[in-house]
């Protein structure tokens, strides 16, 4: 058994993959807590897809240089986050429609740009679905730096994010700059997405943000506990997913997300208070 567990760790690329999966899991889970509580799942999905044109330009300009790719993604993500945020505040059509149009359009632009390159399908697959085993030491350093920055901001502004998310009108009577903290949260989500790009890619990104956080939501009753449990489940899903990927040759991003989804399924069934079984036990007559 231990040989089976240690086997993949002999390879440096697997070690880096595990580190990346752990970091991404923790950062996305913590930020994702707010995505779940504020009902921003669609925003997160849209934002992840909207970065593709930025990735494409970075890819075309840098010719495959990861550093250049990262900064282009980061810039695009922050612009897209604030843009979508502004869009949802003032729009003629319904908010979700407006976001849908913009994100599908941006996504199409990204695909169009990447399709001009000859090795198109392989590269596109990496951007869409991630390539956690291709993470370089330099990539890891950038991920650690920005991941730590995100966690620092979440910790430092904990009280403000809590009040602004739970009761924004009360936050305004405390004369907190609610708009500032809303925008800050959008930027944290954007940076978390960029940090995670290589691990899961844009297509499955939303799962990293919401699935562990939603699972933790079913299991806990206070925000710090929710963040902790979400981070733990995400790390676990990352590690298990990579083992599955190694031994069964499953795409790594998909494996991580599938493990995470299984955790959610289990919690939805068996959570002590919010699970399906608990609800059924509370009112047994409903099913007879």
């Amino acid at each position, binding site marked *: 058994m231990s040989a089976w567990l240690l086997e993949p760790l002999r390879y440096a690329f697997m070690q880096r993959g595990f580190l990346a999966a752990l970091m991404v899991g923790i950062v996305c889970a913590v930020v994702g807590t707010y995505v779940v509580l504020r009902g921003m799942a669609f925003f997160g999905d849209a934002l992840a897809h909207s970065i593709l044109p930025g990735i494409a330009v970075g890819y075309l300009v840098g010719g495959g240089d990861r550093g250049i790719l990262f900064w282009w993604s980061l810039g695009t993500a922050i612009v897209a986050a604030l843009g979508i945020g502004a869009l949802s505040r003032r729009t003629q059509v319904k908010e979700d429609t407006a976001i849908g149009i913009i994100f599908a359009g941006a996504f199409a632009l990204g695909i169009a740009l990447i399709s001009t390159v000859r090795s198109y399908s392989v590269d596109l697959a990496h951007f869409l679905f991630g390539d956690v085993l291709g993470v370089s030491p330099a990539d890891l350093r950038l991920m650690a730096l920005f991941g730590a920055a995100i966690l620092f901001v979440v910790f430092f502004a904990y009280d403000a994010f809590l009040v602004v998310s739970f009761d924004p009108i009360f936050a305004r*009577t405390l004369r907190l700059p609610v708009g500032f903290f809303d925008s800050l949260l959008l930027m944290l989500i954007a940076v978390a997405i960029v940090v995670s790009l290589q691990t899961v890619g844009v297509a499955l990104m939303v799962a990293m943000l919401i699935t562990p956080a939603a699972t933790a939501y079913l299991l806990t*009753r206070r925000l710090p506990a929710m963040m902790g449990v979400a981070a733990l489940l995400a790390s676990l899903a990352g590690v298990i997913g990579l083992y599955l990927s190694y031994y069964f040759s499953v795409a790594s991003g998909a494996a991580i997300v599938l493990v995470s989804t299984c955790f959610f399924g289990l919690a939805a069934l068996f959570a002590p208070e919010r699970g399906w079984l608990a609800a059924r036990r509370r009112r047994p007559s409903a099913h007879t």
Partner: protein
Amino acid sequence: MRRGKRRPAAFFGGPHALHRPGADVLSVQGVTVRYGPHLALEAVSFTVRRGEQIAIVGPNGAGKSTLLKVIAGVIPPDEGVVQVYGDEPDRHVCIAYVPQRSAVDWRFPITVYDVVMMGRLRKHGLFRPPRHEDRLKVEAALATVDMVSMARRQIGQLSGGQQQRMFIARALAQEASLMLMDEPLTGLDLPAQEQILRILDELRKAEVTVLLSTHDLEQAADRFDRLLLLRRRLIAFGRAEEVLRPDLLLEAYGGRLRLVPMADRVLAVADSCCGHGETEVDR
């Protein structure tokens, strides 16, 4: 004053406005609020004295919530001026706004204690943890509303009356001198209503000024110093017998109010959302 021209409040809450000596607790002058083409409030003016308890009554959509939010400094008026202790409301942190229960997500992973502690956020500072003093204030606030045993509950486990008392405890922890309560009694059973009215009596002793919106004209007449009858415009403002006159009630409620003639008085039946808006009106 127009929207957009307001003095910005200090960004992270720098120095807040001091209470000017001799200024009214609350002065509302010519306040008009528009939502697009819709007029929510029109030229509303009144002043409130320290320690008064005011009931805001009027039909659904009369602008009661809007008025409270304007006073709280959450919605800037399109025209007119609101002053709290002689200064703009959005420069004060002594105003507590107690929201309708439907305003928050009750499944949010947060305990009663956490919510009440939010009232201390300005006292201990945005980026600092609560001090011992803050904990004492939160515990005292919970004791005042008889919620000490509920402190560690997740908020979704509370009854409607307990939810409302938790919000009032948050306002107490805030040490507000002006409390704005948006329909705290609506939808509660009578014992739960009575509990909140008893807390209002405590606030009266502490000289906290209260503005409370309600659908219950009878309670408003019995338990409050003055009534403010609102239907977009201010229809009447004064003691119960000055405000609950058939002509004024008819103007406010229109067809939604039935006036039932009795032997020596008129019974006004408000056809409002919570059903029991009956009160007696002297002829």
